[in-house]
């Protein structure tokens, strides 16, 4: 493996059983939530994982967190295979990979104070049980997350804070363990536009000040703009295009990426443009389409798309895409 990768994902698959086996058949329908994902994450790199609901991006994040067990494939963290670990083995690792959830209204326990929430990970991991060190770490994490001065917030409850402040609390409680990776699952989609930038800027600062790598999961290509190093576009459990942020935003190769880019609202009526609006929604991952998974919704599909399932192809040194039309 390359020296600088801190996380490597190889051929990762997660199938869920949809329903129970019937009396007459042993075949249980399978939901192919994640179906062969390869991904490398370097130290202090930001990867945006983009896709519609049902593309498997949230399942992928639960797999990386060890909150779900993969069906197949391998996850390596700092050279150590962490695919299947027991709870005890996993516990030490949890410090290194932390998660920020989508809904700051739901992901905080309403009965705890902000201090209890941020300090909780330290107690769970039985680190620094001395009250002074805990206080200091809590304060540092809160101030790094932009809750300054920390004293103002310590004794409050989540309902006394605004959405943006709550999301900062969630981030502070992730930072307190000094993680190497933060997995942010749609961290801004529930927030007002005026506050989104704050949270995105905060995550962008953390990679610089604390060298944290970030996996930023979102359905909105527009919000990943300035701070992602690389963008991976997912469709039905697979990555269909991956490249540097400029590769993907400026010269997208896959028709799906092009469509996603075209529907991002542009805040200027003079720039109203032709949008590629895909019809329907992501198909049910139980009965996958034959050939290329995207062909039923693809605006440029040709008959050959029904037959062959394209693999990721190298487009340039930094960019890969999976589309039969790109074969020269």
């Amino acid at each position: 493996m390359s020296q600088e990768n801190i996380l490597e994902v190889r051929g990762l698959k997660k199938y869920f059983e949809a329903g129970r086996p019937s009396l007459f058949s042993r075949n249980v329908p399978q939901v192919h939530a994640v179906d062969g994902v390869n991904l490398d994450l370097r130290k202090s790199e930001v990867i945006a994982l983009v896709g519609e609901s049902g593309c498997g991006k949230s399942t992928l994040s639960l797999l990386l967190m060890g909150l779900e067990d993969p069906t197949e494939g391998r996850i390596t963290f700092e050279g150590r295979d962490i695919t299947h670990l027991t709870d005890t083995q996993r516990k030490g690792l949890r410090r290194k990979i932390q998660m920020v959830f989508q809904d700051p209204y739901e992901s905080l326990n309403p009965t705890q104070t902000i201090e209890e929430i941020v300090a909780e990970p330290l107690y769970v991991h039985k680190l620094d049980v001395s009250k002074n060190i805990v206080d200091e770490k809590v304060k540092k994490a809160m101030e790094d997350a932009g809750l300054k001065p920390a004293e103002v917030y310590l004794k409050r409850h989540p309902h006394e804070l605004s959405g943006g402040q709550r999301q900062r609390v969630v981030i502070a409680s992730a930072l307190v363990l000094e993680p190497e990776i933060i997995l942010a699952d749609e961290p801004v989609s529930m927030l007002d536009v005026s506050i989104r930038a704050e949270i995105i800027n905060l995550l962008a600062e953390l990679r610089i000040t604390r060298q944290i790598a970030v996996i930023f999961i979102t359905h909105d290509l527009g919000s990943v703009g300035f701070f992602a190093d690389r963008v991976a576009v997912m469709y039905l459990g697979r990555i269909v295009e991956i490249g540097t942020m400029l590769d993907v935003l400026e010269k997208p190769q896959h028709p799906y990426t092009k469509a996603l880019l075209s529907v991002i609202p542009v805040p200027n009526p003079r720039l109203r443009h032709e949008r590629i609006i895909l019809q329907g929604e992501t198909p049910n991952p139980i009965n996958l389409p034959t050939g290329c998974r995207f062909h039923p919704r693809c605006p440029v599909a040709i008959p050959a798309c029904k037959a062959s399932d394209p693999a990721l192809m190298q487009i340039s040194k930094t960019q890969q895409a999976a589309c039969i039309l790109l074969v020269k």
Partner: protein
Amino acid sequence: MEAQIVKPTQATTRFQDFWGVFRKNYMGLVGLMMLVSAILVAIFAPVLSPYDPSSTFDVTTSDIYNPPSSTHWLGTDDAGQDVLTNFIFGARVSLTIGFFAAFISLAIGGVFGIIAGFYGGRTEEVLMRFTDIMLVIPDLPLMMVLIALTKPSIINIIIVIGALYWTTTARVVRSQTLAVKSRKFVLRARAIGAGKGHIIRHHILPLVLPILVVQAVLVVSSAVLAESTLSFLGLGDPTALSWGQMLNYAFGRGAMSTGAWWALVVPGFGIVWVVLGLTLLGQGLEQVLNPRLDTHHLMPSRPPVKSEAAKRSDEETLLEVKNLSINYVNDGHAPARAVENISFTLKKGELIGLVGESGCGKTTLMLGLLRLLPSAGQIVNGQVYFKDQELTALSETELNKVRWRGVSIVFQGAMNALNPVRTVGDQIAEAIIQHLPDFDSKNIPGRVTDLLELVGIAAEHKDQYPHQYSGGMRQRAMIAMALACNPEVVIADEPTTALDVMIQAQILELLDELRKKLGLAIVFVTHDLGVVAEMCDKVLVMYGGVTAEYAEVDTIYNMPRHPYTQELLKAFPDLTKPKKKLSSIPGYPPRLDALPSGCRFAPRCPAAFDRCRTEQPALHELAGDTHIVSCHLVEASK
């Protein structure tokens, strides 16, 4: 999105919060006082009672069943003892049994409920089936059998009652545990690395506790009743004179035939007092800990305040809002000025974007248009004209003819706005029947199919339930429902929030199509300036309940004059310059019940100067009357 509580307030403990609400709940307070008085009587029994309950040696036959007198205020009983004394000491026995039995039953029920709810699977199956079995066994006969088999002592009675009265607690606690378990903060705790014990202690228990408290109060009252019943049936502890036991002796030893009503009424009163007190307290706690019970969407809002009609600008407009102000009445405090002096017009086929952050009053304004405000909301000034009708002056009945037929609403959060137990087709049909009673019922199914097709849902999905629809389809169904009565104006409240970008684009395209096809006028409420740029004609930017800026769409995006509009636009990621750092507006919108004295945006405004902090800017008209800005900075350039 919910209005946010933004300004950090004085930190309070949960108990203080609870007490602040509880002390306004008279039912709960009365119940609490009744219970506390009974407990005080029990504690201070030796001080309060006129006689020593164990002194029986000087009793003679002439003392039996004496009516109330100066020496025996509540008369004497069958053994010639003072009824008042027995009543006071009886409180001790009854309450002790009640509380201890309740404690046991809560412990069993709580543990069963939490374990079943948290672990699920086989464990839950076994525990809950056992609970069901316990629930169907008749309590009273079983209690009688158990007490009869063991010695009827206080301890045995407590154990038997405790062991039989936990089933409801177990079921209530289990369902609460299930609800708490699926919340995101439990997943967060797992992601931190917390074990099961930690999660139960720190995340499940605190949220189950309020329910346990209510349950505790109710169980104590059942336990007091159960003990009285047992004693009355002669299964009480003969050495401990509880209220039930007093009833038993009086009843069994001729109090009825000798007319000694006091011997029956006094202990009966004790039981009723305690049980009633506990029930009231339980109800009060339930209301305080579960406050959803007293707000719902069927409460009428306050009648609008009549105000002088202003001159209308244009006869062609379909919808015209003139100087509309809406307050939320807040008991004892200054009213929250949620909407102040808002005006806009809307023509046929036009689309206006109503933009602002959460809590800036846009949802209030939208509900105010059709007078659908919650009960504390009141229109205090202004008019709403729909064609030639003035909506704030209409009666409820007249207004009902305008609602849905003239102006309809697409609500935010399509899953909550659809009834989960009825098919989508049914719900659309209902909207037609409700609002168009003359519609030929034979044509309704056809109309429903047409409406669904109009919004891009195939007719075969008509008989499906909302949960079988995807998020995008539900939103389409909501639009179909809003179109059911051919309205001329549709108000869409955040119709694309919480949808994926692609689905969002589909819904926007649909609304745009409908507007062209049907000549609909649309009020599009959103917090996202980018969404409205694609299709709006005009934009009204609201901040803190007032108009910040109102103009044609091109002006808003290319020549914005209000600093708030400018800042909002900067917060928007620009894909043409992907490397540019995003800017955000520091701070939060003001609380509507604590508005700043000057311009409402001044505390967050990068261009604010002294005047902004003291004087609220007027609405300045620029470029004729097509561009309205409320900012001191534009006054000079007018």
